[in-house]
Each structure stands twice: as C-alpha cells, then as structure tokens.
C-alpha cells in the first residue's frame, strides 16, 4: 500500500515537473529558513485576516444587493415594518435575520476587517521600531505602506455598503471634504456620487470598488510583499551567531508550514469566536440612511477615527479672530476642512512612507542590514515612532471626545481646547521622554555588562566592608548588550576645496549632516572589551 502510494506520488511529481520544472522551486523553497520571534506573527495576522475576509466576503456577495432603489421593508423585523429603505439596507437586514448564519458571516467579516487594519498597523510599528525597513527592504516598506492605505480604502468602502444612517453620515462627511478641494472639489464630488449627494449610484460603485478593485490590488501587492520577503530572507533579532550575512532559523517545511499554517486556523478560530459572541455594527438599530437624523456618541470604525478627531480639533476661527475659511477673489478656501482632512493625513502618511530614506540620509550607511535593532539602541527613531503614535492617539481621543467627556464628566469644549494645544506639545514631549528612556536603558545595559547582575547576596569582607556579589554575564547575554552599531554623525567634505572652488552638492551634504547630528550627536556607545577589563581591574 505504502509503496504503491509512493510510486503514485512520484509519478505525479514527475508528470508535473516535466511540464513546469517545479522541482527546482521546491528544492529552493522547502527548507528555506525563517527566524523565530513572536513579533514576526503580526504580519501573518494581517495576511490571515485578509483570507478570512475573502472567504466571508464571498458569502456576503451571495445575499447583498448593491442597489439604492427604494423599497418598503416587509420582513420579520418588527421595528422596521413599513420603513422605506434602499435595497442595499433591506438585503443586509434579510441576510442578518432570515439567513441562518448570515449575521455570523457579517460579523466575521466586520471583525476580521478591524483585525486586518489593526494587524497591519501593529506590524508596521514592529518593522519601524526594529529598523526592519533599512536596506534592502525600503521598497518593501513602500509596498506594505500602500497595502495599509488600501486596507483603509477596503474598510471604508465596505463600512458604507449597508447604507445605514451611520455610514451615510460618514459618506456625507467625505462629500463635504471632497468639495473643499480648491477649484476641482465640487466636480470630484459630482464624479464620485454621480451628481448631487447622495444620488442613486454610489452603493453600486462602492460595491465594485470593495469586492473587485481594492481586494484585487491588495492580492497583487501581498504577492509582491511576500515575494520580496523571500528574496531578502527574513530579518532576525540580534543574538549569538546571528549576523548581517546569515539567517538563523527553522525550515519552512515542515516547521513553519505547521506553525504559520496552524496560526491561520488560530486567527480564523478566534475571529469566529469573537463574531459569535460580540455584536458589531448592528445596522438594524441605526436604521436606513436618511439625511435628517444623526445620533451623538456614535463612532466610525477605528481606523477613520483619527481624521474625524482632526476635523473636530480644527477651529473654525483661530483665537476667535482669524477665520479658517478664506474668501479670496470671490472664491472660498476651506482651510478648516483642507488642513485636518487632507493636508494633515497627507503629511502624516507621507512622512511614514518616506521614513526609510530620511533615516538612511542620516546614517549615510550603504550596507545591507539584516539584524534588527533593539528599539533602545535607536533612541531618535524610537522617539519619532512614539511621537507619531502619540499624535495619532490624541486625534483618536479627540474623535471620541464626547465619550471621554461623558465618562469622566469633563467639559467637551475644554477637552477640545486641551487637545488643540496638546496635539503640538504632547508628541514633542513624548519624543523627548522616549529618547531619555532609551538612553536610560542603554546606560543600564552598560552597567550590566561592566558590573554584572545583582545577586542579592551580601558578603562581609575581612576589613568589615559589606558588598553585594555581582554575577558576571554569560557570553550570550553580553553579546546581546554590546553588539549594536555605534553610529557617529556624518563627516562631510568642506564647502570649498583647496583651490577655493565651491563644491557641488555641498548644501545637500550639509542637510544630511544636520539630520545626522539630530540622530547621533548624543549617543551611548556600547561597552568595549577595554572598558570591561578596566572595570574588572578596578574591583580587585
């Protein structure tokens, strides 16, 4: 039996290989090594929740009717009897209340969408803080960045499909923001909505975008993202035997096939459990879209909240005297919309996208980096990352300021005024504090290397002195603490050469040098063997 199976497998393999030369592929991939660390699973969660999205989404398309044609509800839900609604909303109710497991699939889909975006952002944070975006991975950072933007587009277009009053108001905000774009805004709005808001064509258009264009692009870019991961081989955390020139880990087949493949089922299982237990987006409580009602205390999905927060934060009148909506030569420039909803996200995301290059200008390093940084060993980068997150979190908090005000019995207006200043001050403070913490941790590492670990054992010397016994670090422990790169600020060639001629490209070099000083002027160098020997000498 076994022998026959073997020969059948060999026959199949031979058949396929003679037509595809897939043998070489398996020889190359099957035992490819991957390093092990829990933080490498964040990207996997994003990938797997995307697969769950595809699976549950196919089910939803079997029942959803992407149409804005008005119908009168005539289903089992008593509260909606006789209410006029779009077919999109009616079919959402139908699949929730009359299709067994339909609501479950909707909830699986919505929860995995939230998990998808959250996992992408967390994965990006991991890549950022460990410096995994450095050469040769800058382009893959951009691919990942684009995937993040696409995940927002996928999320928002899907959120709007049920055509409920909450998502409808969200679309109205999008319409208002679109209109604020100078010169072409009102035409872009007509282009998107097929005329005046809300129109009768938007849901079908969003549907195509949501089930075809955006997921198609995501699939292509995921393939590219993973191809580059294979090509570059995975980064690894520092440790004994791990260098920029090797990869230490376990083989794809069978270890990571089992671990990563198994992890897909874990992610799917947990999403299913959450979807079974916790209701999300109960559109039957909100009702179909109607331009008139709106309710307080309702929030969009988390990934959009920061834009909503920025819109709330921006004053219409600066210091109550300077209008933030300018009327110039008979035309209106709505800065109170443009700044929070377009310029701020543009600058924020632009900075994130370009960050790998900004840092490479500062280091001036051209080598490939495959060993990750411990965040403390890159204090300025870590500080910038924490400042960005703080900035984002303040906007998210401002986006939920009504809920915060209610919960802590604060004045809504005071909270907004506080955040208006806080949005500038707190991220700067966060940068400074984080950098200080990183330096502190680096000093502690030096301390450990130089004097060893405290043991808690107190010994009395013959002459009466009490000392605590310190236990020296093992080679592996020490290597972890001393093996980071000690980068000095860039040295550049002088502005004029010896013949007094001004050098081309000097300004650019000087910019890079200034940047480099911000990064590396103040730094804590790792302990050298010489320092260690001196410290040990001093103890004798």
């Amino acid at each position: 039996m076994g022998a026959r199976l073997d020969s059948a497998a060999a026959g199949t393999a031979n058949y396929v290989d003679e037509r595809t030369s897939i043998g070489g592929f398996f020889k190359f991939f099957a035992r490819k090594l991957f390093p092990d660390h829990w933080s490498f699973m964040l990207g996997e969660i994003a990938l797997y929740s995307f697969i769950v999205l595809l699976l549950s989404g196919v089910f939803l398309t079997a029942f959803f009717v992407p149409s804005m044609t008005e119908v009168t509800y005539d289903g089992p839900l008593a509260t909606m009897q006789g209410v006029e609604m779009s077919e999109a909303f009616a079919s959402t109710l139908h699949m929730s209340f009359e299709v067994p497991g339909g609501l479950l699939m909707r909830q699986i889909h919505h929860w995995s969408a939230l998990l998808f975006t959250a996992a992408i952002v967390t994965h990006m944070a991991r890549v950022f803080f460990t410096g995994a975006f450095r050469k040769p991975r800058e382009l893959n950072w951009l691919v990942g960045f684009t995937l993040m933007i696409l995940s927002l587009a996928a999320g928002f277009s899907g959120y709007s499909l049920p055509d409920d009053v909450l998502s409808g108001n969200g679309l109205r905000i999008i319409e208002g923001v679109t209109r604020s774009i100078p010169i072409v805004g009102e035409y872009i709005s007509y282009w998107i909505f097929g005329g005046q808001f809300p129109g009768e064509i938007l849901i079908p258009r969003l549907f195509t975008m949501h089930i075809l264009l955006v997921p198609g692009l995501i699939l292509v870019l995921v393939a590219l993202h993973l191809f580059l991961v294979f090509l570059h081989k995975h980064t690894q955390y520092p440790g004994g035997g791990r260098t920029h020139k090797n990869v230490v880990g376990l083989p794809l087949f069978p270890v990571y096939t089992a671990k990563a493949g198994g992890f897909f089922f874990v992610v799917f299982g947990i999403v299913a459990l959450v979807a079974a237990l916790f209701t999300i987006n109960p559109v039957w409580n909100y009702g179909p879209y109607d331009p008139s009602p709106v309710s307080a205390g309702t929030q969009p999905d988390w990934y959009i909240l920061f834009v909503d927060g920025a819109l709330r934060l921006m004053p219409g009148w600066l210091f109550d005297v300077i209008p933030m909506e300018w009327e110039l030569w008979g035309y209106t420039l709505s800065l109170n919309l443009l700044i929070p909803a377009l310029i701020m996200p543009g600058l924020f995301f632009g900075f994130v996208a370009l960050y790998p290059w900004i840092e490479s200008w500062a280091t001036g390093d051209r080598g490939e980096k495959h060993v990750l940084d411990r965040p403390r060993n890159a204090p300025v980068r870590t500080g910038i990352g924490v400042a960005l997150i703080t900035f984002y979190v303040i906007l998210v908090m401002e986006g939920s300021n009504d809920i915060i005000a209610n919960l802590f019995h604060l004045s809504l207006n005071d909270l907004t005024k506080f955040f208006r200043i806080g949005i500038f001050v707190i991220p700067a403070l966060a940068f400074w504090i984080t950098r200080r913490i990183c330096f502190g941790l680096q000093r502690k590492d030096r301390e450990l290397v130089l004097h060893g670990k405290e043991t808690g054992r107190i010994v009395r010397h013959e002459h009466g002195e009490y000392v605590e016994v310190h236990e020296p670090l093992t080679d592996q422990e020490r290597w972890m603490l001393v093996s980071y790169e000690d980068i000095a600020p860039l040295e550049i060639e002088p502005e004029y050469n010896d013949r007094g001629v001004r050098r081309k490209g000097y300004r650019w070099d000087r910019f890079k040098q200034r940047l480099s000083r911000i990064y590396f002027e103040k730094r804590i160098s790792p302990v050298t063997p010489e320092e260690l020997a001196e410290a040990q000498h001093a103890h004798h």
Partner: protein
Amino acid sequence: MSTTENPTSHESADNAPESFQDPGLPYHRPRRADVDPKADKKAERQVAALFGLSILGTIIAIVSYMTLKMDGQIESIRFTNMAIGFGIFLAMIGIGLGAIHWAKTLMRDHEMVEERHELRSSDEAREGAIQNLKDGAEDSGIGGVKRRPLLVGSLVTAMLAAPLALLWPQIGNMGANWNTGEFAHTMWRKGMRLTRDPEGTPIKASDVTIGSAFHVIPEGLNDLEHGKLEEKAKAVVLLLRLDPRDLNLQPGREDWSFDGIIAFSKICTHVGCPVALYEQQTHHLLCPCHQSTFDVANGAKVVFGPAKRPLPQLPIAVDDEGYIVAQSDFHEPIGPSYWSRLKHTSDGLSSDETDGSSH
C-alpha cells in the same frame, strides 16, 4: 567582584581587542520529547486530541445550522449565531493549535544557519544586462548609432494621449450633468409650508411653544418621485421658538422670523452633518459629528468648533390659516463651503425674485 572565564575579560586592559567577539549560536537544549519516549508519545496524543476537537467543532456547526430555527427575533438569531460560531471556532482552533503543538514538541527545534547573498547582481550579470539593453536599443533605433527620435517622440505622445480616448467619455459620464450650481438651491419656495419630518404634516404657529424645536421638511417632499433624498439632504430645517426678548434679530432679517419663531438650515456649514442637538437653556445648536456650536439667539453664529459660517436662515411667515410658510428659498447655498460658493450665493439671491411653486 570576581573575574569571569570568557575569551575577552581575562585579558588585561592593555591588550584588549577592539570589540567583543560573537560567541556563536547558543547551546541547544533538547526538549523533553526529544529525550523521553513517554513525553514524545504524550505530545503525539495531545496533537491528535486537538485535531479531534476540530472534527467535533465541525459537527457542532453543522448540527446547529440544521436544527436551530430562526423566528426573526434578535434573541433566536443571536443564539443560532453563537452555536454555529462556536462550532467554527472549535473546528478552526483545533487544527491550528494541533499543528502548532506538533511543530513545537515533535518537529525540529534545533536552529539551522543559512548564508545570505548580497542582493546586488554580479558585475558580470550587470554588464550582460546593460549590453543586452544596448543591443535592443540599437536594433530598434530607440538608442545607439541609428537613432529614430521621430518614432520615439510620436510613440510617447500617442501613448500619453491614448488613455484619454478611454477616460474622457468614461469620466464625462460619471458626474451626471456636472451642474454643481444645484448646490445653491433647495426646493423651498415662497408660500411653501414647513412640515414635520418625516410625516409631512404642516405646523401651525400656535403649535410651536417657546423652547420647542421641530425637525422640518418642505411640504410635498414625500410626494417626490425622484431625487427625494437629494432634496431632503439640502432642504431639512430646524424650527425653533425663543422668547422674542432673547432673540437678537440680525440686520436685514428683521422680518424673517415670526414672534420668536425662527428657522435655520439643519445642515452644518462645516462638513454637512445634520445639526441635530438643541440645548434649550443656552439656545445653542450642536452638531454631533464635529461639535460645531451655533447660537440661535444671535443668527446661529458659530460659538465653538470647526465651522466658520452661521447656519443659513430660512425666511418664514405665517399664512392665512395660521400655518408657517417659507418666504423664499435660502439666500445662500446651505451646507459646507466649497470653491465657487460665493458665485452661487449671488446666483441664489437673484433667483429669489422668481418664485415657482415647484421645481
């Protein structure tokens, strides 16, 4: 502190090396299942049990689907959901945990090392690539000795222009009539009654007590065959009555209200949400989306938040039967600002003179 035995620290300060040496891969400790056949057998049974759990979950999901009936009530739906969802949870997590447990206890955990190769192609490959491209350019006339700039130039121009052949008609059709002047007008007309949202019943001035607020739609909105939501999105109004002593009438608008009854557009001038929350004590209207706050007693001017302009006021009067009616359309475009708003505002004013009874 005692000295330690390691390759670096027993050297004296004078001849210490420049930097520490990589100690190499750490010592690999075998797991219990690697050395104890019993532990190995136990792990195997655990993995099989987890896979069994998955099969049980599949059965639970299918049986729940087949047996549980839904009667359209939220409770029964929740229960069905929970049962099927719990089945799917077990079906998935059993496979997942089983596979991971298998990998962690029984598969290799002794790390291996693989060399990396620089991503840069070899010089030889690069030269070959450049040569091939040069040959190709030479063959085609894109580059090389016999260049054909006319062909390159005309091809590039054609390629840049060709997408327009597709996009122009496509985009041209996507914006309907492109008449953004529609922003400037609503269906309000002289003599049109203010009616309750959503019923559409007219409102008598005597119904509006001091401190009350009415959500208002124009008379006849509900009868529109087409474009009902579009008209509603522009025409919704809030009707309020203040003590006339509290109301500061704005210059030029002294006759736009009636005995403390005053009507404002419900669409926020910030980004277009309905301004739905009225604080009776302070006469403030609050937009729940971004918290622009308007002072009704002072011409709905902005007192807080991101909006810059006051809410447009709808001039109202009372007809012979005592019902509240509009005097005209709004005198400016309602809702958020946009590039040519001021242009539309002057259009809006001129169209005021003509009072049609409907669109």
